[in-house]
């Protein structure tokens, strides 16, 4: 019984990317025993939550949501996280960097350039081990950084949480080999093939709510190495780093100590999408101090198990 109406054959790139990501979500849920979805409160992980809804509703998510909390997050983001998880009715696990510090697992950096960014790795790996997770779903994208361009969608980590770029499994068609041994785990990146612009377009299309810091707002900031940072208790300023008020928005929401703001008046999704489409600087180049340190910075961190 075939009806005569012509089906809608044209799929937009967002439809195609969404279909791929939903397929990946379902595949990992089916093939792995204890997955967890990593949620940072950022736009990429907010998109992941929507994709999980698309993959599993009206059922529950077959995995909990985990936030690695540096203790230095923007308060708006934490408030957003709790509200969003409650709306979804899903389970939240918080892995706390502060706890790792208190338990002596890591040592806090000091001084004006101290950041808890590096410390997250230990907290994350400890949590993966403690909960015996065999898969961690992340929102990383291949356009973010050069070493990511070659990373697989199902990306393996050994017992030490390390990524070995030389020993990656070939990834053919949409046939993912998700097999892991005990102690190993796999990072799964459903939006690997998305760009920053795709993410923003998807946020606009799906009318996803984002934490307010993504839109232009007035904030106390200070300038360091040519970038703007939020003035807050968690970052020690040098004597020359006078705070001032500016109209800014954030392109990513990392730890307050290393996430830079851009000057912007884009206050709506439409305006942000337009601004991103016209932008001439990469997200990381513009706003992530941690990647500026060295050309191979990201690759080094990933080898030791960073997100």
């Amino acid at each position, binding site marked *: 019984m*075939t009806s005569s109406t012509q089906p809608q054959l*044209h799929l937009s790139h967002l*439809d195609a990317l969404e279909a791929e990501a939903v*397929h990946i979500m379902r595949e990992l849920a089916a093939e792995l025993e204890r997955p967890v979805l990593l949620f940072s409160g950022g736009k990429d992980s907010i998109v992941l939550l929507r994709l999980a809804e698309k993959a599993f509703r009206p059922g529950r998510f077959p995995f909990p949501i985990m936030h690695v909390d540096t203790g230095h997050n923007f308060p708006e983001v934490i408030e957003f996280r709790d509200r969003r998880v409650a709306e979804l009715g899903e389970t939240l696990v918080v892995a706390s960097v502060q706890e790792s510090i208190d338990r002596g697992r890591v040592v806090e950096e000091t001084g004006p350039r101290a950041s808890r960014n590096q410390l997250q790795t230990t907290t994350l790996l400890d949590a993966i081990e403690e909960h015996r997770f065999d898969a961690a779903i992340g929102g990383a994208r291949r356009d973010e950084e050069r070493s990511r361009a070659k990373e697989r969608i199902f990306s393996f980590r050994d017992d030490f949480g390390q990524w070995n770029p030389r020993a990656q499994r070939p990834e053919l068609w*949409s046939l993912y*080999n998700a*097999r892991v041994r005990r102690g190993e785990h796999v990072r799964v990146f459903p939006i690997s*093939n998305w760009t920053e612009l795709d993410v923003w377009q998807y946020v606009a299309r799906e009318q996803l709510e984002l934490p307010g810091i993504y839109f232009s707002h007035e904030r106390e900031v200070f300038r360091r190495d040519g970038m703007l940072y939020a003035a807050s208790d968690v970052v020690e300023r040098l004597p020359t780093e006078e705070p001032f008020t500016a109209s800014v928005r954030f392109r990513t929401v990392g730890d307050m100590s290393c996430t830079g703001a851009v000057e912007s008046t884009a206050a709506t999704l439409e305006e942000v999408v337009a601004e991103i489409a016209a932008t001439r600087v990469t997200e990381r180049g513009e706003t992530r101090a941690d990647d500026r340190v060295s050309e191979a910075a990201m690759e080094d961190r990933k080898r030791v198990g960073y997100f």
Partner: protein
Amino acid sequence: MATEQLMSTELLRLVTAGSVDDGKSTLIGRLLYDTKQIMVDQLEHIETTSKRRGDGYVNLALLTDGLRAEREQGITIDVAYRSFFTSRRRFQLADAPGHVQYTRNMVTGASTADVAVILVDARKGVVEQTRRHSYIAAVLAIPHVVFAVNKMDLVDFDEARFAEISEELRELADRLGIGDEVAVPISALRGDNVVDGSDAMPWHTGPTLLELLETVELTGDRNLDDRRFPVQWVIRPMSEEHHDYRGYAGQVAGGVWRAGDEVVVLPAGLRTRVAAVETADGPLDAAVPPQSVTIRLEDDLDVGRGDLLADPERPPAVTQELTATICWMSERPLAPRARLVAKQTTRSVRAIVGELESVVDIRTLADVATPERLDLNDIGRVRLRLAEPLAVDPYAANRTTGALILIDESTNETVAAGMVLEA
């Protein structure tokens, strides 16, 4: 550009291949640069690096190099994925290394590609590598192949030279059964016929490389005739509100799916009808590849992950034995009687390799019968016996239900890519 327009562009996946030094990195850099995808910080970075290396110009090839080890050796050794867009399309590019020892990487990049862009050096014409790259494009059934005849500046932009190479390429494509093939004369270094046209080659009246990529017709590449739906996941909320809900979630692999369609559940062979085609956002009139949807069935049957829903009038073969072309991807050679796992769509079954029927001599493209083993990067034809049945189509008819990977359970490695020839 209006936001709505930006949001409705079509996704095109392409793979690029070429021998070392044919100019592939330069070409990709040129595509990114001339479509204005290069950000200021990236450009600054390659300007500094070019200077440091003593290049006399901004080396666009540097935009696409990847991992540290590769940077040190100055070569590309793994597939790198990149994106760029124009107002007409959003491109997903798999940049595959060219050398014969990386055949498996090109196969990987080619597996999902709609278009292959194969580099040819205008001074050299068709060489062994060109034949190999074209062969892989044909075996992986990439629907469209574009030969980018590069370094035209080094042959004085000569029309006759290009015509000669085009003719050779056409013969090659015919022989390999490549359906849609076209050649473009370019200079990646100078940018001729890549994104913009070429003053130096006024005789070329056809489209530039980018124009080709923007206009190649993709809708016909999907199989819309034979309904196929591998069940990935069963949605059973068992909540108050959705008490009896049972939905089969998956990605459409063929045909057009609508409520009311007759269905056979394979391999069991049970029959029923589609009650609804829907997503988390609500019901759909119809679903086509590659949409991810949920299908509900009229009858309460025993259906689970690994089952295939299909059109009972045009079913796939259900079989425990099949012949496939495989590309061997492991350092350890494949010998007859090897025990492996075959993963096809959402089903994994144990498999025993029977006879190795042939292996391709990659230099001559001739089949060599009954090899003793397949080595890393070899492409050959094998017989597989399966512990349980699979529902398969020939790869030529369906690039999803005709594809499989082989996994070695002792190492968990993916050791081969397989394309079903007959079942």
